[in-house]
């Protein structure tokens, strides 16, 4: 999954119009970034990349782009 596909997927998870997210958005400022979207992110990362990302790893992410980097890093090291 490339960056654009990832951002579109995050748009859907966060119930935003397609193309809203650019990557530099702070997670804490996103209205729908909650426990449900967090679990969805983890489940989809697992479904897409076959890796489980723990909540502890997500806590270290400040922006949407950090989530993408985490997903890509985990995929490459798995």
């Amino acid at each position, binding site marked *: 999954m490339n960056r654009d596909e990832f951002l579109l*997927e995050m748009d*859907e*998870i*966060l*119930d935003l119009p397609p193309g809203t997210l650019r990557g530099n958005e702070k997670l804490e400022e996103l209205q*729908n970034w909650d*426990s*449900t979207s967090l*679990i*969805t992110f*983890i*489940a*989809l990362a697992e*479904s*897409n990349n076959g890796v*489980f990302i*723990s*909540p502890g790893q997500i806590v270290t992410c400040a922006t949407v782009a950090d989530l993408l980097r985490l997903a890509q890093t985990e995929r490459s090291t798995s």
Partner: protein
Amino acid sequence: MESDAITTLQSVLKSLRFPFVVADILRKRQVMKRELLKQPNLIPTRIAILGGSTTTEVKSMLELFLLAQGIQPTFYESGYNRYSEDVQFENPDLWNFKPNIVLIHITWHNISEFPGLLEDEAEVEQRVRREMARFEFLWEKIHTVLGALIIQNNFDLPRLRPLSNLEASSSFGGVNFVLRLNAEFASYARNHSRFLINDILYLSAQVGHAEWFRSTYWYSFHMAVSPTATVALAHNVAAIVKAVYGKSKKCLVLDLDNTLWGGVIGDDGVQNLILGRDHPVGEAFLDFQRYVKGLQRRGVILAVCSKNDPESAKEGFSHPDSVLKLEDFSAFKANWDPKPDNIRAIAAELNIGLDSIVFVDDNPAERDFVAEQLLEVAVPNVGANVSGFAHVLEQERYFEVEKVVQDDLNRSAYYSSNLERSAGQSRFSDYGEFLASLEMTAEIGPFVPVYLERITQLINKTNQFNLTTRRYTSGQVVAIAQDPGFVTLYGRLADKFGDNGLVSVLIGQVFDDTVQLDLWLMSCRVLKREMEFAMFDALIEQCQQRGIRKIVGTYIPSKKNGMVASHYAGLGFRSMGATSGSGELWSYDVPATYSPRTRYIRPTADTLLATSPSADNESVASEA
């Protein structure tokens, strides 16, 4: 709804049908919810989820699947693993929430004490008793104090088996212990109404044990069921709720060639059909027929919709290996007309809504055509291989039932005898003469315990002859039956062709010398038989006995109840005008002397018209 909105809604509903693409559901859940909330006439319900683990995902998925069934839930969610304390200590938030349904979501993690190694049978039995006492305390409190229906899952199997295969056979084995507890839960369900089992033992096996419980989600979130498996869990719970609200399907409409047998009857002839144990594909058709027969036996109405010459089509059922017989079908359409037209005709003939129908056809073009033309009909994607048909029907949970009652077993007979009645009607030039020839008898009386299940079932699934379309849970029906502040009537109708069963229900609330009718409904299978007159006669008798001078009826229009728009006017009620939001009110002054309206229905000897409400209510209370 606009056509674009309908297309979007159809696409959402399709995503929530088997086979599930879990990633899509997870990703699109917010959009799906928004679209589903646009549906008209959603039925509201309040569900308290009491969890032994994290239930956020359960709530989110359950909401989607309920909305897809036309039910709009409001949720209460207990704190993590507070399912017991919330009930035990009467959490005011839960009590104020007044749930219609309590869903207790627990798993094997919530079993307090598994047996110790080498514990003997008596000690293990004591443990079972202690666990059961703990749960029975909760269930009884929920029933008696909260008055809610309970959906309780049984237990899934523990993840690890330190005793390996001995876990299943030794008295102290964990698997054995879980199965014993599950048997006790099942026994409780058999002996208590308003208590339904959500069978996660089966679901976890179906999903696969490794996928059902994922240690990563457990240790990260204390989710006892993985997100993927939660989709299956929520779908299963939604099916139970759907049954509670009478929204399960009633009728299975089947194609014939390559659906119930292999081959084309018109071309191949009955002797060359592929059906029976002698042929691998024939065996699959036979097994599908057995499955369909099983559905029919427990009350699902069967109908045929086939492009065929009618005589050839019927001949197929004379095949020596055909488990299904012609008489199993309550409607039979074999012709060359478009299938949507035939399905409409079947619905009209059986007096059921299109939304009660499931259509099965091996031909994808026919399936698409019906799905496109008849939005309300469920058209599962059964594929072209008969070996998968039953599996798809099972997965969709179309025919979920709360309970099977005698009336369900007799349903096909009702519909078949209705066809005989219709045939008989054509011999009479005068309709009254026809009604007289039916030799009808009715048993009408205040609610009695033996019929409360059926009354609840009827209340929650009758849409057409239903003046207010108000839905009641079984708990509410039990409470009303015991409350002397209500007038209640049920009506059973029989005729020379057979027993139609319990077909009419009336509930009224008494205020001084007035009774306000909250509910009046009748099954469409006895329309135009004057059963509504018989019910009205019984109501008048009740009013006279109780000193009630005025009857106020309400008509709340819905998409489906137009047939009763002039019901009260026809009975001589005066319109009191429309009231905002609660429909149109009608009033009737109870006369001192009254001539019964019904001309063709005799009361049976055991009609309970004379039974005093208080005496009857005591009998309900004694069994409640």
